[in-house]
């Protein structure tokens, strides 16, 4: 108990590395705070680089894996970038004369948005 009390009295207040360095070199207080500022800027930069690299490797690299698994499981033909029923999603490469409604009760789509450059293949198209 006595040793603890004595050490508390004798031990000087804790200083950061840059502050200790500044004190050793006899720098004024302004310079010490600039040192601290420099240390913070470097630390933040290193932290951001490390965070980006680690996140890119550990998490974000394969975060589309679950969707890929479901596409394979359900035999889907297209990812859901566009809403269901839109020309981009429903049946790529279709000839515009072919009505691709899988259910007859669904209203026909407007073919104005059809992209004719995608071409078609098959036989019996009207």
């Amino acid at each position, binding site marked *: 108990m006595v040793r603890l009390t004595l050490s508390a009295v004798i031990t000087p207040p804790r200083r950061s590395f840059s502050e200790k360095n500044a004190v050793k070199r006899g720098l004024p207080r302004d310079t010490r705070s600039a040192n601290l500022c420099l240390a913070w*800027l470097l630390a933040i930069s290193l932290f951001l680089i490390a965070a980006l690299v680690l996140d890119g490797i550990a998490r974000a*690299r394969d975060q589309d894996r679950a969707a890929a698994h479901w596409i394979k*499981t359900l035999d889907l033909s297209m990812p859901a970038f566009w809403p269901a029923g839109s020309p981009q999603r429903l049946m790529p490469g279709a000839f515009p004369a072919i009505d691709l409604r899988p259910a007859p*009760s669904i209203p026909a789509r407007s073919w104005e948005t059809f*992209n004719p450059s995608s071409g078609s293949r098959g036989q019996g198209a009207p």
Partner: protein
Amino acid sequence: MNLLGRYHDLAVWAIGDLRREALPSVTLFVALAALTALLSVALLLTQALSLTADRLMTQTPAVVVRRVDAGGWSPLPVGEALAGAQGIAGVLHPRVRIWGVVSSATGPVNVVAATAAPELPPPWSAPLPGQALVGSGIAPGLSAGADLLLTGAQPISLKLAGRLPENSALALHDVALVHVLDARALLALAEDQASDLVVDVFHDQEIEAIVAELIEAMPWPVHITTRPENTRRLRVELATRGAAVSVTLIPAALAVMTMVAAIGLWGRRQRRRMGLFKALGWTSADILHLHLARALLVGLPAMLSGLTAGYLLLFWPGITWVPRLLFGWNAAAPALYLTARSAVGPLILAVLLVAVPYLTASFWAGWQAVAADPADLLEET
């Protein structure tokens, strides 16, 4: 060690300079961060979308065969279709799909019959008749056990058995997984009919040859789409949409030019001070290093902050601003989980596009003072 100490002293001096001009330094920091974030998003967006799409498309069936007649799509007789496909060398796992688009209160829904699929990953199990597992975009207000009305060939009310995972929204966002009986009723398909036939192949190079044989093997007119066709078309669509975001590169270029001009003007204002330093014994190298240290102390954290912001804007799990902005989603947009593979190149390019003009301008501002005579600099007002 002495060299390191000298650079350290210059950096400390530069920080003192920056603190004396706090407002311009903070403004420069914000401008650099915003510019880097804008450029990194513009450069990364198309690449991230295309790469994710490519990776997802590799999981889709290689060939889709749909029966057509004079009226368009028509139901596919299952037995004949499978018999025709199984006789073709190179065709792997021919199977039929029962799926289609029906309407719901919140918009169109992709109905997929669950029995056509292999076992679902745990904890999901195939829905029973009268049940539906739905993606996060279908009737988002409904909870498990609620009634979901789907309208196809006939309106059918299904019990919501659960939600499909949101981290797979790029596959499942507007998918309703239902029992095959419900799917047939919704899509007006008889017991021996399906929506289409899909097959896999061992190598993608075999697809072209197999397509011709499939057309020959089917006893009715068919329309065939292949995975390479779909992938190419998707890439074109995504690149077209991504190009809209690339338009932001024009104001970004203007911002870079403005920043260079501002740094040049600032350098001119510092000439008298630099002349004083030279008169006090600073070398030309000291003055150049001071300018570069000051530029790096603001620029490095600012550009890294901008990079982080751009990275998070695209790769934060479940972003929805991209589908809202680019793909025409109005209500509940799918949560995107894009892959960050090959993001390094665009990120480095974004930093270079900002850092090279910025550091060049800072160097030039220092060089203006170095090249001049100290007496001339001190005489300037």
